[in-house]
Structures are given as C-alpha cells and as structure tokens.
C-alpha cells in the first residue's frame, strides 16, 4: 500500500517535470517509436486481410459444405474437387505422432531439468536443447527422409514397412523438433512452483518421484498445458518436414505408414507452381491458409491465457 502511494507521487512528480513545456523533438521521437510498435498490428491486420478476401472469393465458387465435408482434395485437377478433409486428417496424423514423441519426452526432460539436475548439469543441458530448437526445419526434413525412414524400414518387423514418403517419420522427427519448446515452457512452469510445496511433501515422507508427479506437475499444470498447446500449434503449422518427408499426395487415411499431404504441405506445394493471381489454384492457397491460421490462432490464444494464469498464481 505504502509502496503504491510512493509510486504514484513519484509518477506525479515525473509528469509535472515533463509537462513544463512541450518538446516537439521528444514528441516526434515518441511518435516514431509508436509507429514501430504499430507495425506489429499492421502485420496481423495484413495477415487477416490477405487471407479473408481471396477466401471469400474462393467460397463464392466452392460451397462451404463441399470444402468442409468433401473427402477428395484435387483442386488442380479437371474436374476439380475441394474436400479439405484429407488435408486435415494428414495434419492430424503427423501432429499425433509428433505429440507422441514430444509430450512424454518433453515433460520428462523438463522434470529432470527442474527437479533432478544440479545447476551445473542444467547449465550444460539447457543450451544443448536450445541448439535442437535452432536447427532449420528443412534440415529436419532431410533427416526424416534420408535417415529415419530408411531406419524404420530396416527395423520394421510385421507386415509391410513404411513407404519412401510416410507420415510416421515426418511426425516423429517433428516431435524431436518441438521437444525443446515443450521442455523449456514446462520447466519454466515447474521452476516457478514454490520450494515450500516440495519440502512439505518430502516432510510427509514422499520420495522425489512422488514429489515430482503428485506435487510439482499438478501445481505447474496450467503452464505445462500451455506448453503442450503451443507444441500442438507448432506441429500443425510446421511445413518443411512434412513437405520433404511425408509426400505430396492428399490421402484420406489414418495409417501413418502411407504418404500424406498436410494443410501446410499443400500450401507450399501449390506455391511451388507459380499460380496466376485470381486463378482458383491461387485462391485455394488462401482458403487453406485461412483454415490453418484460424486453428493455430485459437490454440495460441488458449496457450497465452494459461501462461498468464500460472504467472498470476506464483509470481
């Protein structure tokens, strides 16, 4: 209470000092800096405008029903077909396998770093994980195509193994790529849990594994979930790995051994062929892009909310 009062009088004094006479140079600089901040708003508005207008044109030619319920995606064929479901299942399958890697192992890595590692070990291991996050996605795509897929084909025991292009290796490698994101956000949330909670549990006779799984993880849950959601959002939006390793055939299937095309994969491969402005091929890029942006936007907002929530609780 006292601190806030002091703060307000300080602010007041500062304001009085500053309003003695207007300094036009200062105001100009403030305006310029404000303009820089507005660039980020303009970017968002630009993205929305870029997506909305061609999408409206697209949906004047293709019905919403056909787009969201059709099971055949062949927009550049004759006759064309605009069912987006195969692209969505392709995205779901690669995302699922990415999550199968990055959720358990990301959380495990975070738990180790936050609860078990000594400060020295942590200071070595965290930068290593950061390097993993800094590797370009096209490099991961190369790794999936030329290392993981042949490896899977070699070790596959039952039935027919994965094809040259398959959703499984793209998904698994994508999981490795997202692992550091999840580990780092979860670790932040777990480190923010007050030490008193851990000591209390230990005093009641819990061992360290119990403290981690029953006290720290539940207490940090909103932060961990925020990391997970952001991870899902990155998996859905990832392009190069799936473009290189998952193939480019839209495929309504849940079998990860087959080649598939994701929403991002379609946008990129449609962009590879130079689509003339105004053509239906050009507009499909934007319609699929709008769907992609909407999905990731909802997840990002959910994640941002959750992070705020845990910050409020412990900081």
């Amino acid at each position: 209470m006292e601190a806030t009062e002091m703060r307000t009088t300080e602010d007041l004094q500062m304001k009085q000092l500053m309003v003695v006479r207007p300094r036009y140079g200062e105001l100009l600089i403030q305006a310029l800096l404000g303009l820089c901040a507005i660039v980020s708003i303009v970017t968002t508005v630009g993205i929305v405008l870029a997506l909305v207008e061609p999408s409206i044109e697209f949906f004047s030619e293709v019905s919403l029903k056909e787009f969201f319920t059709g099971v055949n995606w062949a927009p550049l064929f004759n006759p064309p077909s605009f069912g987006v479901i195969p692209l969505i299942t392709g995205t779901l399958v690669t995302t699922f396998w990415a999550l199968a890697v990055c959720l358990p192992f990301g959380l495990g890595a975070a738990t180790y770093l936050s609860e078990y590692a000594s400060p020295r070990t942590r200071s070595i291991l965290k930068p290593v994980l950061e390097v993993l996050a800094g590797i370009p996605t096209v490099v991961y795509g190369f790794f999936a195509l030329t290392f993981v897929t042949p490896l899977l084909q070699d070790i596959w025991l039952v039935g027919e193994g994965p094809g040259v292009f398959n959703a499984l290796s793209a998904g698994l490698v994508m999981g490795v790529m997202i692992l550091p994101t999840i580990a780092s956000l979860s670790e932040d949330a777990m480190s923010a849990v007050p030490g008193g909670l851990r000591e209390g549990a230990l005093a009641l006779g819990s061992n360290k594994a119990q403290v981690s799984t029953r006290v720290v993880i539940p207490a940090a849950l909103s932060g961990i979930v925020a990391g997970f959601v952001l991870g899902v959002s990155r998996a859905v939006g990832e392009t190069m790995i799936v473009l290189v390793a998952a193939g480019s055939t839209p495929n309504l299937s849940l079998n990860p051994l087959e080649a598939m095309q994701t929403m991002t994969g379609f946008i990129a491969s449609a962009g590879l062929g130079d689509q003339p402005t105004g053509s239906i091929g050009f507009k499909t890029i934007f319609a699929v892009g709008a769907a992609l942006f909407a999905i990731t936007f909802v997840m990002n907002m959910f994640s941002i909310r959750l992070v705020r929530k845990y910050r409020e609780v412990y900081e």
Partner: protein
Amino acid sequence: MKSIGASAARNELESRHRDFFERGFMLALIFSLGIGIIALVTLILQVLVEGFPRLNSELLTNFPSGNPEIAGAQSAIMGTIWVIGVTAAFTIPVGIGAAIYLEEYADKERWWNRFIELNLQNLAAVPAIVYGILGLAFIVRGFLGLGQTVLAAGLTLGLLVLPIVIISSREAIKAVPDTIRQGAYALGATRWQTVRRQVLPASIPGIATGTILALSRAIGEAAPLILIGGLTFITFNPESVNSNFTVLPIQIFNWVSRPQDEFRVLAAAAIVVLLVILLAMNALAIFLRNKYQRKY
C-alpha cells in the same frame, strides 16, 4: 543462510526415500532428455558423413546445375546474405523502436498497449508459412508489388522475426534498473536523452544477443520463401535488392526433393554449410552475452 540448512535437510530426506521406483523414474527422465541429445548428435553425424564427398570449394564457388558433379551453392549463399541483410536492415530498427516504445513510453493500463502485447505473443506463434501468404498477397503482388525479389523476401522474413526481436529487446530493456533512469531524470535529461544515453547502451548486449538469434531463425527459414518464389533456378548472384534470388534452405530443399543420390549428397553438404553459419552466429550471441552482460 537459511536456504543452505533447508536444502541440506531436503537432501537428507530425499536420500532416505530413494527406492526402486524412484530409480526407474529417474532413469526414464534421463532417457527423455537423452532422446533429444541422441537425435541431435545423430543428425549432425549423418549430414557430415553423407555430405563429406562434396564438402569442397566447388560447393562454395559453383552455381546450381543439372549436373550434380559440378553443381554448387554460390548463388544460394550470396542470396542468403542479401536477403538477411534486408531483413536485418528492416527488423533491427523497427524491432528495437517498438521495444523502446512498449517498455519506456507505453502506459500499460491503456487497452491498446495491452492489445499490442497480446498481438505480439500471438504473432510469435503464427506458422511461418502464413507469413509467406502475407508476403505473396501484399509484398510480392498486390499492395507493394515488389515481385519475387530479394527485397520482398527480406521484408517477409523481417515481419516473421520481428516479434522475436521485439520480445527479446524488451527483456533486455526491462533488465535495466529504474534507478539509472531516475538518475538521468534527476540530472535534467529528457525522456529520449535518458533512453538514448543510458537505457540503450546498458541494454545493447541483451538486444544484440536476441537479434542475432532472431536472424539465425530467419536464415534457416524456407517455407515462407517457397511461397514468394525463392525456388526458381538461379545461376547468378543478386546484384541489387531488386534481383531474383534463391537462399540456402531453399536450395537444400530443391536438392533433397530430387531422386538422384548425388543431389542428396549435395544437400547434405549444403546443410553442413548452413549449420556452420548458424553455429557461428550462435557462438557470437553467446560470446556477446557472456562478455558484455552486466547484472544489476
């Protein structure tokens, strides 16, 4: 001193309760972390081994060619330098300006400033390819209509990494203690004088570190540039910002997607070049952080 006593007591309690399950749990955690490290090491070894036959000077001096024996990545390397130059020229001043505004000028109670904040967090998580769509619609065609040029690519990547530059610069500015600002005000400095002569110099190491990391993200980005036409067969170096271009990640993608093994070798060799560039930038960032960062 209380904390040392507490942690000693905690260690005592912890060691008493170690049992079989506890060990298994810890091994599982180490394994989780190990997966990431093993993947990293395997990946690096694989590109080194696979790319080794083509890690020669021709890779750096020759231009792309249909013949994998003589194909090189010179135009892609020069293209990367040009594009990142444009990205840096755009994103560094705008990013730092926005960060200064948000930290030093903006009244955080106002809704529009809170809105900018939320907007930034979302932009940082928008898929890269969506920025490619933005670039295609308004920068390459439409409003700016720059065509498939170095300038268009640099601006698109600039917008992509802008949120990262702003967020990390804000962290650096936030770390400068208020007493420094108050000292400057007390001596009669204006707000801008305070920012320019006190706050900025004190936060430059942090800003530089964050900016270098953001630019290294831009160097590795391929997806948005595919949309704005970076995949044309380019056998010349860019001569101005209005030249057509290709960049290293796009060249790598092009080589990876060809069926012949020789091109895969070439791709692996180009990946080594790309990783060396990124490693050098990361090392520079870490060096700057350790050498100049002061704790207040």
